[in-house]
């Protein structure tokens, strides 16, 4: 059975239907990239998966446990899903080390010494061990985002959801975050990534989902989507992105 199953998710904000029945599944160890124009419900989809917002209809399973069930232990389930935000959202009053450590200590009730060791290992993994004592405001955007990835990793999640992790970054800082994400994907982490980084999508994704107006228009391997898209909309979108950002690979 797939690690993550999303079945017919609907979500309305007011009268605006943002998600109109989205279904897909994600296999263990795979990286799936969600692309599409802004305002097509990609971020909402991620939030419905970890229940930061609750879908109006549809179901979500994580590792055979239903997240959308009325009696779901939502905090336990969220602890198994990392979430990396566009705006990093590192805890402003905590050092990088404490940001990474707080989840294991407060949510998983890990001993502080063990959690400190773990947090240092995760910071090292994203190349920021020497910034352990810095506060978020003392770090660049790229460094903050890497710390937030380390924070997600410290919970040993079953998968990590990335919500446009590089969209708030200056262009020269995008690379360091993508490098960390590529390494993660290679190490076998299961990832669901909403992004406009086509280079990343093309080289790392096992499968790409193209979403527009709250529905999945098309999904397939990068080769399928980039070289022979089935839907003319997919082709148009990729062409537009190509024009905007130059080369896509």
């Amino acid at each position: 059975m797939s690690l993550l199953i999303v079945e017919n998710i609907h979500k309305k904000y007011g009268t605006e239907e943002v998600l109109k029945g989205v279904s897909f599944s994600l296999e263990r160890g795979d990286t799936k990239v969600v692309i599409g124009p802004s305002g097509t419900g990609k971020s909402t989809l991620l939030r419905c998966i970890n229940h930061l917002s609750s879908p109006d209809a549809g179901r979500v399973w994580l590792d055979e446990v239903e997240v959308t069930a009325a009696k779901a232990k939502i905090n336990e389930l969220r602890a198994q899903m990392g979430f990396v935000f566009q705006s990093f959202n590192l805890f402003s009053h905590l050092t990088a080390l404490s940001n990474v450590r707080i989840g294991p200590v407060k949510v998983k009730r890990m001993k502080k010494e063990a959690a400190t060791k773990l947090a240092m290992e995760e910071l090292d993994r994203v190349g920021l061990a020497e910034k352990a004592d810095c506060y978020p405001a003392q770090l660049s955007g790229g460094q903050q985002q890497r710390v937030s990835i380390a924070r997600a990793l410290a919970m040993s999640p079953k998968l990590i959801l990335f919500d446009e992790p590089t969209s708030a970054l200056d262009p020269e800082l995008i690379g360091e975050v993508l490098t960390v994400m590529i390494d993660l994907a290679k190490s076998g982490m299961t990832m669901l990534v909403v992004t406009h980084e086509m280079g990343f999508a093309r080289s790392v994704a096992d499968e790409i989902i193209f979403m527009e107006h709250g529905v999945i228009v098309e999904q397939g391997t990068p080769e399928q989507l980039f070289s022979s898209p089935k839907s003319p909309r997919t082709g148009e979108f990729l062409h537009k992105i190509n024009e905007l950002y130059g080369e896509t690979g």
Partner: protein
Amino acid sequence: MIFEWSWLPQLAHGLILTIEITVTCIAIGVVLGILLALGRVYGGKWISIPCSIYIQIFRGTPLLVQLLMIYYGLPSWGIMLSAFTSGVLALGLNTAAYQAEYLRGAIQAVKTGQLFAARSMGMSMVQAARYVVLPQAFRIVIPSWSNELILMLKYSSIVFSVTLLDLMGVAKRIASHNFLYFEVYIVVALFYLALVFMVTQLLRMLEKKVHIPGLGEHLEG
């Protein structure tokens, strides 16, 4: 007669009472203020609305009226409180309303992304408030609370109107006995000034001690 200073030591007793009243009312205000702010922000409407009504009443009526109501008014309902209890209760209940509003503002100044991040790693609402939102809100609120503490230090002088012999009460008695209004009130004013100065310095130190880069800096100017 003009240089008769023998009344000076009496002021020391008043000074101690002023400090006692201020500390007690601030303590009441902090505890109650935190509860009111949490009720306003996190309580559903059944908790939030009563908290809001409380705050409106205590901010919307004069402190002196509140004090006189408690000391002279409550006995007609059979509730007799000592002058000291009435004083700290009036000041405490009043400052709680202001402190609650400052803290509510500070809680709401913490970006919602912080709460999302906490919840998304599996923290409960209580954990997220306790470990993520409130530690930031408390740092943001320090400057406002400092002002409130200084105000209370000075407003505590109204307890003379319920017969308490705080700094102001003692001064009034000495002044009217000896007709030394000018000298006595000048000295009393200097006492308050010195107290306010010391408190300000202490709070600055506290603010520096708990300061975190990038947090609450926009409020310092």
